[in-house]
């Protein structure tokens, strides 16, 4: 455990502290999420977050970095991502430029050498010069290892990368070190807090899964969704908030291709606010449904039931949950 005074992980003293801390930067956590973060810190293991798109997987990393005031280093994965883009690269151009500039100097230096053998041994001394940290271009992974106070390393959509890349990540994730053949092994003084996200485009390898804590973030319940929207959208009225969250929750229960996630709810709340809607009504919903549903077929599927769903969402709350019962987060 990083008990070192210099690290930026100090505020993570308990699960409650994490929940409260994330709350201050507008991320409404649940106990599973905070527990995972707490364990990740304690066990020094990365968290692998799975779940539908737009439920706040990436946002957790961003919020953590904001709360802990640590740099967020993000590596977006895609097919064909390789070491050169993820880990480090030699600054070829700079190396080349330096050789050009130093050419004459080299001549002078090598001029003293009598034989070919002598100049070769002199030359081999320069090799180390050119393959030194000075010419090393740090890419996200290496960059994360080099932070003095620690950092939040977000490896986004790991499922989009190739399997070879996944295997290559193993060293970084289990030992928090990076091996550069020309220099040696660079070990992180303060290991980064690593968060991997996956949308399950492909099944991840067992080796990678074994090195991670597993966290699944699903769609939020009514209460949490209200708190999230309130934290994200300024000046939304309690009535509208309650109604729109209930509407979204009921849309999620219908059989559609892409169920709206929190990101869509927030967008929709902003849209309605922009249109000065004070309560949900059918015409508004019909006009703005494309913010919530991203497929034509989904909109068509939900359309016939909109009237009924709006009535249900604006009617008396069967579950007895009222928005006004919650403290104002905005």
């Amino acid at each position: 455990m990083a008990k070192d005074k210099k690290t930026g992980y100090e505020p993570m003293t308990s699960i409650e502290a994490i929940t409260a801390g994330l709350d201050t930067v507008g991320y409404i956590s649940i106990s599973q999420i905070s527990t995972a973060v707490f364990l990740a810190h304690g066990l020094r293991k990365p968290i692998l977050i799975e779940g539908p798109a737009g439920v706040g997987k990436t946002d957790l990393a961003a919020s953590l970095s904001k709360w802990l005031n640590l740099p967020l280093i993000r590596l977006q994965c895609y097919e064909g991502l390789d070491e050169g883009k993820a880990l480090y690269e030699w600054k070829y151009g700079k190396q080349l430029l330096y050789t050009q500039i130093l050419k004459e100097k080299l001549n002078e230096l090598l001029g003293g050498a009598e034989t070919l053998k002598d100049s070769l041994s002199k030359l081999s001394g320069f090799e180390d010069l050119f393959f030194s940290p000075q010419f090393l271009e740090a890419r996200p992974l290496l960059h994360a290892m080099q932070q003095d106070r620690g950092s939040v390393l977000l490896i986004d959509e790991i499922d989009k990368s190739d399997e070879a890349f996944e295997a290559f990540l193993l060293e970084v994730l289990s030992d928090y070190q990076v091996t550069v053949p020309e220099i040696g092994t660079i070990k992180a003084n303060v290991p980064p807090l690593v968060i991997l996200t996956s949308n399950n485009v492909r099944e991840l390898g067992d080796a990678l899964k074994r090195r991670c804590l597993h966290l699944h973030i699903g769609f939020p319940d009514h209460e949490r969704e209200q708190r999230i929207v309130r934290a994200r959208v300024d000046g939304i009225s309690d009535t509208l908030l309650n109604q729109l969250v209930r509407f979204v929750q009921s849309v999620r229960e219908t059989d559609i291709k892409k169920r709206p996630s929190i990101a869509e709810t927030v967008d929709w709340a902003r849209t309605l606010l922009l249109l000065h809607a004070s309560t949900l009504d059918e015409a508004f919903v019909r006009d703005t449904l494309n913010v919530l549903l991203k497929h034509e077929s989904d909109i068509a599927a939900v359309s016939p039931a909109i009237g009924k769903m709006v009535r249900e969402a604006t009617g008396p709350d069967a579950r007895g949950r009222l928005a006004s019962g919650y403290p104002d987060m905005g």
Partner: protein
Amino acid sequence: MEKQISNFIRALRSADVRVSTGEALDAARTVAMIGYDDRALMKDSLACVLAKSESEKQIHDRLFELYFSSAPAGSAVQSAGTENDGEPTEDPKDAAERLSQLTQQGNEQALATAIERAAEQAGLNDIRFSTQVAYFAQSMVRAMGGEQLQARLLEALQGRTPDADAEAQRLIDVRRTLTMTARERAERAFQIFGAAETEKFRDEVAATKRLSAIEANDMARMKQLVAKVAKRLAVKHSRRRKRTQRGLLDVRRTMRANAGVDGIPFNVIWRQKKKDRPKIIVICDVSGSVALYVRFLLLLLFSMKEAIPDLHAFAFSYRLKSVDDILETMEFDAAIKKILREIGLGSTSYGQAFSDFKMEHENKIDRRTTIIILGDGRSNYGDPRLDLFRDFAGRAKRVIWLNPEGRALWGTGDSVIPRYEPFCAQMSHVATLKDLEKAIDEVLTAYS
């Protein structure tokens, strides 16, 4: 507590959740870190460390509830453990008295403790099958001093006085309570350690059972099994589809990549050969007996949509029709029903089906396509249209014929299977789910 955790991990493993030694250590560290006072917290934390997918998390949560429901008593075991170790020499009367004390109201905690100890002595965690519950329950009662109780009971029965009768009745009640409690405990242990094992055994049986003999009540199990098989195949075949060919320089891309360094080739890029994506056309005979197999083949293939992005299904008995739309828009069972109802009627004609395919869908075949035909090749003595079939086989990558009929029947009666055989890369008898898995595996292997 460590023992509790390691037993819990054993239970998880027997339920097919793969837990490595490293994770077991992590679990122990986790518990040390968060303590075990807060049960919900412990559940979340262990799930986080031990489960690696949504389905594994569900198994974990179920087992956690079962397993740690006995945890409080379990942790008291050690403290109570030393109290009366001299059991064998214990006087029958004392033993009976002790046991009847236990079964009295208000002593639930002590009883639970004694039961836990007995469970340990009887090796209850080794339970595998539900038939063992009674055996283990008995062993537990014996470990608690059941024999002494029995002896005391016999003695009382011989007494023949009202007092002795009452005593006997009381002891019988004690014995019954003890046995019941032990049984409950053994039942729970079976749920934790054995149920998954039994399920696995049943799965194995189901996978090797003739698909035509699968009964309706096994359908749910078969569906899960098919899903498992599909996942296994998908994982195996969704490997990277590029292969670097060292030695063949990609000049154009190398020059581009090194333009920034004056064209000096620091970064050499090799030509890559892209592997074909699987492209599969399934043509299913949905008449009569073959229909039973169609269901499983389609279920398997459509659960693998991820690994086979280019998949088209056709069904025929007399006329051939594409069933992609039905399968994609409807729930699977309903879709199959609809297909069988709409297409399954009429006398089978392979010739007609092939000519329909030629007319309408021929352009779907290219050199990357594997055609899978599922059927018994019984064409009611119609023209088999070998000319068309040869044409398809020539244009496609491979033609695979899966036949639910045993090899001995091929060519008998109206079966024209042997005449199609020369054009097929492979013609195999498919009777069980295992056969299906093997066949699809081979089809996909041809693409890697």
